[in-house]
């Protein structure tokens, strides 16, 4: 079983296609939708966690690419700006997935991209704009 978090970008012509359905039904993949939107350029964007057998996952990804869906890792859409973080810790109780980690001995904050689901709750909570979600 493999899992990854990706951002899918759909061109205008694919906006009405039930692509998530096909990923689940035809490729036996588990899809957890984290965020979805259609932006003003009329592109669809979908932030998902996708998991399944290695082979199925590979086939599913190929299916997306052949359709013309752009796939990129979620990590590219989320930026933790270490130089802006003051390690105040006000974001710690806000993060629902413990992606923002506090070393309580040193009181130093760090960020675990793998745990981040891109919910964006930390963005308005940070007084120093140390997190950017480009989604």
């Amino acid at each position: 079983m493999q899992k990854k978090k990706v951002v899918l970008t759909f061109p205008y012509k694919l906006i009405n296609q039930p692509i998530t359905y096909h990923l689940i039904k035809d490729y036996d993949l588990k899809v957890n939708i984290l965020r979805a939107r259609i932006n003003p350029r009329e592109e669809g964007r979908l932030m998902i966690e996708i998991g399944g057998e290695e082979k199925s996952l590979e086939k599913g990804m190929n299916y997306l690419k052949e359709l013309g869906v752009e796939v990129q890792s979620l990590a590219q859409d989320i930026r933790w700006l270490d130089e802006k973080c003051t390690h105040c810790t006000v974001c710690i109780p806000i993060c629902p997935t413990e992606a923002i980690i506090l070393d309580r001995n040193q009181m130093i904050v760090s960020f675990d991209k793998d745990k981040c689901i891109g919910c964006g709750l930390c963005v308005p909570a940070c007084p120093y704009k140390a997190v950017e979600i480009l989604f």
Partner: protein
Amino acid sequence: MPKTIREINEKIKRGEAVVVTAEEIIDIAEEKGVKKAAQEVDVVTTATFGPMCSSGAYLNIGHSKPRIKLGGGRAYLNDVPVYTGFAAVDILIGANALPDDDPRNKIHPGEFSYGGGHVIEELVAGKDLKLTATAYGTDCYPRKKLETWINIKDLNETVLFNPRNAYQNYNVAVNLSDRVIYTYMGILKPKLGNANYCSAGQLSPLLNDPYYKTIGIGTRIFLGGGVGYVAWQGTQHNPTAPRTPNGVPRAGAGTLAVMGDLKKMSPEWLKGTTMTGYGTTLTVGIGIPIPILDEEILTYTTVKDEDIYAQVIDYSLAYPEFEPGSLGEVSYRELKSGRILVQGKEVPTGSLSSYARAKEIADILKNWIKRDKFLLTEPVQSLPSADSGLTFKPLKERPLE
């Protein structure tokens, strides 16, 4: 044998002073005992790095040719309004100031992405700022309009002047209501979803000198990465707040007004700050040395997070309505553990004040003193203390008719 500040300064000049941080002194005193520690240690450095709304700066921008009198006119730095009530070319910018066209909280919660605090950070960072001004014109100051870039290096006096900083203890903010609230203590989730505090606790300057026995008017301090001074007691200074038997206030008490030369400061220690739904502010780095003159003063500096208590206040009703009442008292040790108990519920905690950065400041100041780059000062005058009877008064409103 008590020491004097002059004796400590002589040791600093000889490179012999023993300087430790307010965190380090705890173990030293435990290990050696108070008597020996007081003999051996000369200075304890304290620090804090948190949002301090009552911060601002005054600048003398120099006279233009022909001259303009900004006093009584209007002026802006990067579209953020500055106060022009002082003479021709002295302007004052406050951390909370916002551009006239900022939507504020019209769509709640407002973003408040840029304001006076950010202008001060950019000025200190050496960035060019856009100055625009209009004036009414006089015979001696004929000009009515000014638009120019300015840079800190070309200005005359550039002084950080903060009427209230370094609060001695502060509230722990929670939200008992069933909606999210946006406060100067951060975003508070409904039904006790989180608890935010704002103090460096055992490292915080006035918690290590609870009766202001060494910190007073004229005390030289680390301010925003440079050197500053305590100018006065801060606004809302409330030395008569309730205290624990060790003298430590159990709620917000003393405050400091501080000032220093912005040209010597650094954007690392003066940060423009955004509180969503509330406004902009400035996060200020302050470090204050405490001369260990005797055992009593040393004992105060050994205060630990578990000995410092703060009041848990509901920011959905009690705070905005100015109602008395605390939901309970918690120690900074509990706050830093990540969870506190409020009304029987475990509430996760977050801090607005950075302990990690405060520790860095305490270390920097320690090194300055050790390397003879920073001498201690005798206060010119003491701050009003617990015996002064001074209290923090509410506004008495009187009808106009």
